[in-house]
């Protein structure tokens, strides 16, 4: 969490493009990113900014017709660009893990949540089935699910959205990763549930000293959790800096406009206030 901490993830000139019938689409166009040990970095952007694709490419989850190139992609000293699929498999879930936006699609609907947590453990460690199950139940308790032994036998559709997200976090944290990549994990949740899930995620983060790359479009969440902020637009990094600096002294027009567009729930009502710049509206371009 301090500036002196070592660099955990170093990305230089990351580019991701997809070959479609209509031509090649560049989703990420030259992004530099650094995450230090224990640091919380927020990747902020609107739809089409390339923030999610960036997150996926770090985990090596971009499949053809997507193409990932970079000048450098190092994690914990390892060169991920030249890593084999086996090496990436060994990293995923253990050293780097991911929390997705939509637990109903990220979790296997045909298996109990307990078995899915246990599976991650058994993939990476030589643990017996019973041992893994016990650890799964413990993890469920740690993520705040009551009656964990019983809930472990439940299927994803039997749980609420917030509980499913807690299960996702349990899976992501099962093997105490060094880096957690969270892709809009609370966007689909009610605000009170979001608060609880964020509290959980960051108490685990504080405990384990993991670094978090948190991808979101919600500036309120960014302000609450980030150490550093990276603002993306159109596949590029527009601005980055410490969270204080970005919120109090944003340098780029895009960042300023983004901040001005977010109403503060503590600010008294001002009927005359405009959220958007007076320039031409309605020309936000063609759909993706």
């Amino acid at each position: 969490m301090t500036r002196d901490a070592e660099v955990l993830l170093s990305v230089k000139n990351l580019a991701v493009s997809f070959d479609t019938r209509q031509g090649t689409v560049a989703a990420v166009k030259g992004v530099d990113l650094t995450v230090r040990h224990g640091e919380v970095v927020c990747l902020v952007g609107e739809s089409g900014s390339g923030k999610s694709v960036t997150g996926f490419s770090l985990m090596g989850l971009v499949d053809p017709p997507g193409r990932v190139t970079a000048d450098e992609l190092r994690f914990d000293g390892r060169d991920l660009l030249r890593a084999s699929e086996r090496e990436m498999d060994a990293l995923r879930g253990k050293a780097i893990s991911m929390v997705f936006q939509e637990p109903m699609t990220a979790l296997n609907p045909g298996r109990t949540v307990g078995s899915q947590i246990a599976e991650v453990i058994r993939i990476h460690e030589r643990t017996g089935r019973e041992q893994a199950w016990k650890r799964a139940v413990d993890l469920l308790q740690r993520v705040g699910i009551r009656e964990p032994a019983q809930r472990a036998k439940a299927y994803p559709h039997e749980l609420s959205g917030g509980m499913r997200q807690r299960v996702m976090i349990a899976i992501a944290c099962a093997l105490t990763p060094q880096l957690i990549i969270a892709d809009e994990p609370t966007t689909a949740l009610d605000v009170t549930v979001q608060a609880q899930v964020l509290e959980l995620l960051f108490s685990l983060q504080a405990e384990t000293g993991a670094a978090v790359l948190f991808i979101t479009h919600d500036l309120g969440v960014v302000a609450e959790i980030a150490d550093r902020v990276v603002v993306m637009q159109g596949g590029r990094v527009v601005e980055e800096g410490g969270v204080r600096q970005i919120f109090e002294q944003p340098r780029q027009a895009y960042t300023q406009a983004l901040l001005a567009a977010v109403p503060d729930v503590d600010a008294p009502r001002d009927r005359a206030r405009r959220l958007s710049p007076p320039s031409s509206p309605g020309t936000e371009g063609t759909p993706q």
Partner: protein
Amino acid sequence: MTDFMLRAEAVTKDYVVGRNLLGQPARVVQAVRNVSLSIAPGSTLALVGESGSGKSTLGRCIAGLVRPSSGSIHLAGHDVLRLSGAALMSFRRQVQTIFQDPYSSLNPRRSVGDAIMDGMVIHKLYGPQQRRDRMHALLERVGLQADHAQRFPHQFSGGQRQRIAIARALAVEPRFIVADEAVSALDVSVKAQVLDLLADLQAEHQLTYLFISHDLGVVRHFADRVAIMSAGELVEEGECDQIFEAPRHEYTRNLIAAVPRPDPGRRRLRAAPE
């Protein structure tokens, strides 16, 4: 006693979930329970709640799209539960709804211009040329271009489609608009633009809004009065700043407390940054 635009009393909506073998209702879910509300003309009431609170269902009851199980709703001079014939058509002109999902609320096979003119055609307003002129003017007013009229919805982004939906609603000169999470699916900057547009239009046309939303930051900025719903019930209602500064009900307090503030100096989850 002012003249109210909307007066809803003891509105209840039950849904039957599952029937037993004899076809009798097995379980009844009360989506809306005994809710009473009123809205003054020209003002905005925000209906706030989390998922399952019943706010969308209540909004649809008020807009006459869903029939409540009991209660009464008087809107724009109409008794919403006894609409038929000419009264129904008049109601359908004066009360419009803007829906949440810009991708499903426009007919993919209908050009944008036709979609905007639909209301005028259905209500037999104006002649053909005038309808076209009004349609072009509306497109420009909502921030699009007149020559977009021949295009189809899939050629527009989400924010643009919501603008088209707004233009379509305005075409019949309504007095009351239900915005059912109308900006929730939009990007941050687009949301801001559409909210500004809605605010401008309200002043221009003396519109009354029922603004349904779960986003408290947006609500505080936009609404005159706020009504909070939870599990089908109306928990608290009052003037905007008052609700936010001095919420009386615990649920409201928790809700407001849970909203993340866009200011690192006021963060509560982690230590404040240097």
